[in-house]
Structure formats: structure tokens, C-alpha cells
């Protein structure tokens, strides 16, 4: 049994094999693998006795359930109105310069992806970004480069 299949089985045992378990399982696989590979989605379909199309159809609906490979750290910069007004473009430029990737890309070592997100719910403290589940409100280009450099030091 491959590692992915084992992971899926383990999650199915934890959450159950009902249709209502699909979202928690998809989310768990994304947390561990940073995206849903074809192999993972087929394994989930088999475990839950669903069609693979159904699993892909569900996964592809949700922005945070990526179906293309993403980095270990997914950086999402809020792009909606207030954050736009407060300078999210500069934040993106800063991150782009440090990581040498454009929006939507992943670093070659597979550690960072840079994305934009719709309203993250911090409009009074914009601009804001998420790195995985961690929030960074009220960032400036300087603060942003400090934060990203901290992540670069991590394993």
C-alpha cells in the first residue's frame, strides 16, 4: 500500500466512510500533502465508495482544496477592496522578489507557493496574508520580508 493510500485509509477510519466525511478527509490530505493528487482522489473515492468524478467535482469547487501541487507553505495575500486600497500589490511584489516566484507559482524546492485570496476578514487591519493557517495582519513590505525570511530559516 502506498503512503497516500495509507493516509487516506487512516483518515477514513478516523472520520468514517459517510459522505459527510468527504470534506474532513479532503482537508486532512491537503494539510499533509499540500494538494490533492490524482492518486489521493482515486484512493478517497475507493475508500468512501464514491465515483472519482464526484470526489474531483467536490474538491475542485473549493479554493483551499488545491488539485495542483503546492508548496509546504502556502502564502495567500488578501486582494479584496480594502487590502487592495492599503497596498497588497506592494506586499506581493516583496514576496515575489524574495522567493523569486510570480503569483500562482511554487518555488522549485517545493517549499513556498504564492497566491492571492478573496477577503480574509481583516479589512480593518489590511493588508493581510495567511501562511497556511497562520494570519499576519497589518503588514508592511518590511514586516513581510521579515516574516518570509523567518519561514525560509525553517526546515
Amino acid at each position, binding site marked *: 500500500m502506498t503512503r497516500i493510500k495509507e493516509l487516506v485509509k487512516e483518515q477514513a477510519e478516523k472520520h468514517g466512510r459517510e459522505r459527510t466525511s468527504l470534506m474532513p478527509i479532503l482537508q486532512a490530505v491537503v494539510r499533509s500533502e499540500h494538494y490533492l493528487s490524482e492518486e489521493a482522489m482515486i484512493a478517497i473515492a475507493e475508500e468512501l465508495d464514491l465515483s472519482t468524478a464526484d470526489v474531483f*467535482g467536490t474538491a475542485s469547487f473549493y479554493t483551499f482544496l488545491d488539485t495542483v501541487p503546492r508548496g509546504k507553505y502556502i502564502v495567500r495575500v488578501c486582494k479584496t*477592496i480594502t487590502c*487592495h486600497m492599503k497596498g497588497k500589490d506592494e506586499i506581493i511584489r516583496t514576496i515575489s522578489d524574495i522567493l523569486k516566484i510570480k503569483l500562482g507559482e511554487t518555488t522549485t524546492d517545493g517549499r513556498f507557493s504564492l497566491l492571492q485570496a478573496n*477577503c480574509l*476578514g481583516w479589512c480593518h487591519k489590511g493588508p493581510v496574508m495567511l501562511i497556511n493557517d497562520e494570519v499576519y495582519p497589518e503588514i508592511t513590505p518590511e514586516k513581510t520580508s521579515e516574516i518570509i525570511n523567518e519561514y525560509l530559516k525553517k526546515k
Partner: protein
Amino acid sequence: MEKKIKKVDLIFGKVDHLDILKNAFQRTRDEIILDVIDSGLRGRGGAGFPTGLKWKFAKNEEADQKYVICNADEGEPGTFKDREILTQVPEKVLAGMALCGYCIGASEGYIYLRAEYNFLLPSLYKAIDEFHEHLKALKFDFTIRICSGSGAYVCGEETALMESMEGKRGEPRNKPPFPTSEGYLGKPTSVNNVETLVFALMIGQEGPTKFKEMGTFDSRGSKVFSVSGDTPTPGIYELELGMTLEQFVEEFGDGDTKAVQVGGASGFCVARKDFKSTLIGFEGIPTGGSMMLFNSSRSMYNILNDYLEFMEEESCGQCSPCRVGCQQLLKGIEAVKKGIKSPSYLEDLQKLSDTMRIASKCGLGQSVPNPFNSIINNFREEIIY
């Protein structure tokens, strides 16, 4: 309209939430529901359905299982109050859910939390564990679980939210049947916004009178506002309903406010000339709390463009008026701006947006005309030139 803006502290003030529940459990379900109806409390997520009636409908259904869902999929641009409520007073939200469970006869509750707020999970789980222990002591059988979203604005629509909880694409259902008769897993379900549940709890404590005395005939009580944009004091404020936009801007504006977007990307843009005559509330312009201020340095074209981009990305794609409509509106204003289309093309686009209001399946597509028409009507020249 001499009333000054009045700050209120019902939501964030600390209370003995268990004591409120203990007293409530001594009363009949009908008594409490009548109090909530009498208070005039309407849903605080934006749609504004009378909360007491929703509970009554759910209570009147016969079923072996019913559910309480706390809608914490706060995705409307410019809204961030539910995050703050869940951070500061989670126990009041949980107690509000238990109160709803008692009234409608449900033993299970769910919090549908948007993925963007996943960082709240550890503290919420802790609060839920503690709360379960207290409920045991009160001998009330009610279990709360959390369902996480995965980044879809449309899941804030209650039927899409339940589809998502059931492990499906978050596509809104046809209504009727309404969730109070056929909701989560086909069972009667009361879906309430985070803030609504806390207000219901406070009405349980204080009775309906105090709440009813605040606000106006159609918009009773107070409301938590999320204030952002060009303001020296962005943040979260609980204010008595019934103020005009002029009063609001006097309090929060930077002296150069040219427009306020009331109700987020699905709300209305009000220009300076109309501040005085616009009431914030169900008689005027309702809001789920989002108040975005823009000063004269802002291009209303960019703002409309951002709203449309947002809606175009978040449209679930299920019905064509919304899917195609959002794309065409976005393309359309760009074409007018670039001079590819003549200014009169805006009238065609406004007709299209009217069609979206009539023909779209859910609130998302139906409300795209709100920002679109209000911005075009107020700031037509900024869209063209």
C-alpha cells in the same frame, strides 16, 4: 433625527452564560420563542429573517433529529465581526446555540467555520469541551461540533452551507423547502449567524423589552458594525440601529468621505449627496455589518472592478444568469473604460444586471445588481473616463 450614535455593549460584555441557560431551561420553549419574536430580532448575517419565527418553524416540525447550525462562514468583503465575537466571547455563541437547540428540540449543533479562520480552531475546541462539561452538569443533552469550510464565499448561503457540510459542492439548493423543514441531511435545521445567536442569548437574559426599545420599528436593537476603508478609526463597533449614514460618517469618516459601501460587495454604494436621507437598517439599506468608507482619492471604477472580480470568482457557476452575468459585467465595464464600447453600453449592462436579480437562483447572483447599479448610477463618469 436628533439621535446621536449610541454605542452598546450586549455582544462583547461578559455574562454568566450558564446562568442564563439555567434560567431558560426552567421556562417553556414557547415562552422563550415568543420573547425572541417579541424582541424583533432579525438575522444579523445580512438577510434579516426574523429569528424567533425561524425557531418557531423549526420547533413546529416533527422529526427524530433536528440541527442547530451556527453560520461562521463570514465571507462578505468588509465584514470581520464574527471572527472577533468567536475570539472574544465564544462561550456566548455556544450558549446561544444551546438555547436554540432547547427551543427547537435539537440535540446536535454545528459551527460552520470558514477555512480562513482555521487559526481559531484550537481555542474553539477548548471552549466547546468546557461547555460540554457544563451542559452535563445542567443535564441538557446537546453536542456541538465544528465543520470547516474550504474557501468558498457562496457557502455562507445557508443551503450551500449545508451541501458543503454534507460533503458536496457548495451549490445553493432550491427553496422551498426551507431549512427549517428540510435542512442538513434532510432534517429540520435552524441556521443562524454568530451574532444573532449571541443576541438571542442576551434576550434570554434581559427579556425582549430592553432590546425592543433600541432601534427603529423594522430594525430593533443594536448591531455589530465592521468599519473599514478610509477612516481614522477602523474596527468593530456595536451601535444602536436607526442612525443615518450622515451620522455614521460624522463619527467614522476622515472628513473627505465621498461614498460608503453599505453591506459589502453584495450591498449598496451610497454617494455623499444621499448620506442624510439614508437610514442604516431594514427601512433604508440593511447591512450584515460591512461598512466601507471611500474618500475622494479613490477611483470608483477600481472599486466596482474589485467587487465584480470577487463575485465572478465566487459565483458557484450552477445557474447561468449569475455565472455568465458576472463575467459579462466585468468584461463590459472594462470595454467601456477602454473605449471599445460606447458609454451607452452601460445601460445594456444594467439591463443584464436586472435580469440577474430576477433570474439568479440564490442571493449571490440576485445581489450583484446592488453594487453594480448603485455605483454606475452615482459615479457614471468615473466608470467611463
